[in-house]
């Protein structure tokens, strides 16, 4: 009953994050209200420390806690990304929460615990652990969604997310119980062995796989399991939306890929076919429906669905029949790259929405962006940059991400899939540029003309700077990120 020290060292970052959260929960009541920001900074500091710890340990592959946890470079890559994203969320929230008058320090605690859940997801090598990680993440998110308690929309979003989330995790857990029956364990390695031995002729494995896929597809918001996304994204506080759209999606993808490849690697052709179907549906639906949205958060929600579709291309590639290991792992690394880039641009876009939040105005409707260029040159320019990047136009980072994904698809012989993706990328330009058009090519109403204040706190500036740096730098010089992603792609059987 002793905790092995070596194991603790392996999960040191997790421990630190949890510690920060606990300290925060304890300190919050005793701190004077004016010092609350300090707690946020403490969290950011923790993240920075964790970042260096993880970065330093990159490249090794260590198992811990009776092989329930694995820390390999794949996990480390995602963790680094998650640190950055969480840090950005916290910084953005410092100003935003005040604007919304929900500045409770607990919020940061939830972000940290949610982050812990995500970290566990990406480095779990056991379905049970991954499940618990998902739950930890989700429960924190349910609560954060409902943080604007006094607003019907927020609570409603929370309730919807909660019901559907609990429902889908019920499906997932049932799948896990079935696979436990088939494999006698929930370890991915042993599941792989059982799957290899039995194949899909065993309905137990089959149904388990379906349920697990559905559970994850829900988390990454792939069609037809996306229905919650627009409602929840719209209703939740903006920074939470950003966090969900970016971090939760990235972590879910990471775990999804690991489960599929390490657990169900034996039946690749089957699941990749299914995912192919989802992927195409997702691309079609996400992009087309986004065109008619007038609420920018809803539009970004559909755009995030569409982006999940692009990332699914990578999943398909990773599992496609007859692709060599090199090509398949290119699929994996292209997802990693894509989601990393996606994180920056989406974070940036949501940050813009957040800083447009003013006392009376939501900054969420497309109309609120009317003539932004007239009022805030810089803000409009940044928003344009993010939109251009989301649309995947070079030389921004969004292009690089799409380029690698489609390249992977073509390499795997899925040229037609790349064509589908390209066509919808072209369609997506339409709704992204509509935002640009509204900002640059319309006159603000006289009422809007007067409102020149932005909720632009210094910390939000830092976030924007980060996002812009990500979008531009990764677009102009993506080399380092690409090589990191390539070298830390999941080793494939």
């Amino acid at each position: 009953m002793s905790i092995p020290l070596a194991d603790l060292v392996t999960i040191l970052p997790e421990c630190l994050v949890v510690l920060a959260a606990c300290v925060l929960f304890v300190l919050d009541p005793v701190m004077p209200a004016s010092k609350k920001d300090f707690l946020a900074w403490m969290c950011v500091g923790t993240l920075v420390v964790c970042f260096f710890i993880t970065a330093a340990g990159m490249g090794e592959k260590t198992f811990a806690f009776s092989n329930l946890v694995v820390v390999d470079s794949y996990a480390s890559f995602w963790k680094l990304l998650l640190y950055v994203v969480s840090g950005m969320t916290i910084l953005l929230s410092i100003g935003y929460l005040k604007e919304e008058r929900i500045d409770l320090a607990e919020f940061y605690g939830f972000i940290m615990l949610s982050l812990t859940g995500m970290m566990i997801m990406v480095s779990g090598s056991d379905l049970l652990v991954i499940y618990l990680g998902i739950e930890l993440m989700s429960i924190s998110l349910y609560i954060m969604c409902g943080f604007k308690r006094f607003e019907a929309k927020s609570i409603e979003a929370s309730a919807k997310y909660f019901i559907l989330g609990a429902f889908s995790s019920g499906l997932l857990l049932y799948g896990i119980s079935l696979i436990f029956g088939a494999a006698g364990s929930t370890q991915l390695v042993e599941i792989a062995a059982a799957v290899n031995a039995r194949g899909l002729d065993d309905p137990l494995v089959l149904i388990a796989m379906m349920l697990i896929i559905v559970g994850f597809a829900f988390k990454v918001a792939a069609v037809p399991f996306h229905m919650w996304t627009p409602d929840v994204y719209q209703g939740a506080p903006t920074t939470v939306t950003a966090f969900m759209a970016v971090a939760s999606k990235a972590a879910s993808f990471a775990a999804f890929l690991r489960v599929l490849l390490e657990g169900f690697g034996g039946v690749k052709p089957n699941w990749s076919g299914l995912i192919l179907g989802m992927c195409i549906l997702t691309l079609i639906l996400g992009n087309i429906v986004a065109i008619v949205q007038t609420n920018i958060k809803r539009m970004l929600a559909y755009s995030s669905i569409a982006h999940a579709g692009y990332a699914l291309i990578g999943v398909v590639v990773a599992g496609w029949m007859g692709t060599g290991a090199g090509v398949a792992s290119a699929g994996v690394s292209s997802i990693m790259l894509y989601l990393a880039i996606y994180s920056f641009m989406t974070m940036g876009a949501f940050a813009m929405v957040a800083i447009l939040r003013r006392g009376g105005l939501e900054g969420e409707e497309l109309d609120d962006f009317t003539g932004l260029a007239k009022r805030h040159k810089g803000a409009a320019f940044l928003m344009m940059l993010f939109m251009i990047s989301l649309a995947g136009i070079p030389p921004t980072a969004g292009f690089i991400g799409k380029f690698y994904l489609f390249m992977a698809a073509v390499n795997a012989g899925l040229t037609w899939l790349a064509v589908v993706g390209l066509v919808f990328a072209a369609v997506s330009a339409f709704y992204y540029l509509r935002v640009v058009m509204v900002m640059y090519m319309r006159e603000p109403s006289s009422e809007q003309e007067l409102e020149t204040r932005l909720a632009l706190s210094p910390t939000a500036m830092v976030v924007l700077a980060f996002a812009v740096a990500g979008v531009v730098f990764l677009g102009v010089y993506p080399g380092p990120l690409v090589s990191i992603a390539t070298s830390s792609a999941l080793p494939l059987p």
Partner: protein
Amino acid sequence: MAVLINGFLGHKYSHDLAGRIAFGSVGLSFLCALTVFMGVMADPTPREVIAYSWIFGGDLHVNLGFLIDPLSAVMLMVVTGVGFLIHVYSVGYMHGEEGFTRFFVYMNLFMVSMLLLVMGNNYLVLFIGWEGVGLCSYLLIGYYFHKVSAAKAATKAFVVNRIGDAGFLLAIFLMFVNFKTLDYTKALANVGQLSTEMATAIALCLLVGAIGKSAQIPLYTWLPDAMEGPTPVSALIHAATMVTAGVYMVVRNHVLFDMAPVAMATVGIIGGLTALFAATIGLVQNDIKRVLAYSTVSQLGYMFLACGVGAYTAAIFHLVTHAFFKALLFLSAGAVIHSLNGEQDIRKMGGLSKKIPITYKVFLIGTLAIAGIPPLAGFWSKDEIMAHAFVNHYYVLYLFAAIGAFLTSFYMFRLTYLTFYGQSRVDPEVDKHIHESPPMMTVPLMVLAGLAILGGFMGVPPEHGWLHGFLASVATPLGAVPHEVSMGTLMGLMAVAISIALGGWGLAHYMYSVKPGMADEWSERYAGAYRTFLNKYWVDELYDAIIVEPCKRLGQIWDWFDQNVIDRFIRGIGHGADASGAGITWTEKHVIYAGLNVVGYANHLLAWSWRKLQTGMVHHYAAVIVIGLFILVHFLFVWLLGTSVL
């Protein structure tokens, strides 16, 4: 190397916010380009400069590098030269306009992208320039943002371009899969290893990109609409430089096209059809810029036709001359519009030759050049294309080109007559203020006029001109047999071309100068054709109807579906056969709720969300999840069954 300076300079000045120094920087880059050009003239071997390693990792390795060979040198000259003149002109034209600085920032950004496009040493750099010019064009078309039509045109241009770009990107992927590199030199050196099918596929994908950018059938619709932008923009982007990028790309990859006869034929046919088709529309348009736009589309068609028959040098030759005279035409049209206080309808012009003599003269020169009256530039290049089509036995294409040439000559002179001759139909108000443009604008016009007159001589004598020698190393068709065409044939063809041009002129003269009523009479007599042309064959409407609307509809439907259909559907089923019952229940429910809402809340948003809560979306969502799950299960069952049977 001057290239480097040029490139870096380009990067630097895009960030330069001072509009006034913009044209200076372009001028500087023109000088650099000139130096480069001289260098290439002295030593035509291609050389590459690599700025830095851009993308690496995996097996993909792309440098941000530049390639200078005669082809890019010529393009460079055109882009910077014409660009410089247009910049000078713009300073005069845009003077006093709102957003002067913004305009020049975009213009410079455009120049940078264009330079990247022509100088890049690999496809990815080309693509970045390619998208960059598209983006700038979008921004510049939408420059007059208070005009709704401008904003729409901008979006249209961009989206149509993106469709083409998708094709181009696909070609890049295929290229990479086959060659494992994206550098021109390495890739094109290995073209021989490709199967004909693959070469055709790649070439066709490239062609899609080129069609989008160069406004060929069926993606040409954006260009006429793009005339919503300021006139210098139309001149620079939509006439002289950007739209020719497609031609440049085809010529750059001519090795590939040479391997794929099908693709070649497609290029030629598209070019020929566009040349003819756009010319017919141009016949009856009344907006001075739109006429020029359709003529641009038509002239681009000629360039594609030239590529299609393997006359790459002729294509580039026409590209260059076209850049001169079309920029000239656009800019002088701009001067006309300027002096008429923004009037663009030629029905409200006329008799201007006395009032703005300089503009009139340069416009006439431009018209003569484009109509193919010797010895102006257009004659030589167009004649060469037609001659190539003829001697290579593409008689149908030759016919297209010849008719197109006749129509071109006709509508250009129609334009000239309506604008500058006859009775003044100008608004009396405006009439008082007609004035010649400032020298800032007229000087570039005169320079361009000079070029339009003399530019043709770099391709003289036909087939053996200076330009041909210069481009020989980069634009000679693969495995071409240098056929000797007898001087007689050539002369004959020239004579035909001249007579066609003069014929068009004559007809226009007759109709609009000698017997002015005749045009109206004809338009009534052939009302069907007239309306068809005037409405541009209803292609825009067609596209709207078959592509844009369904997309929007689909989105709306799903959105609506998202919000109430499932609910309604379920109820409908519940009521069994009584379908109308479903409707009633639905209305009833909503009416009741609406009543409740009015009572309950003043806030509409809350009402909406409350109703939403009420209609029980969540379990519908859950239902969708479950249904999705079962579809997946079925799918897999069927699949497994299928594989086990097989």
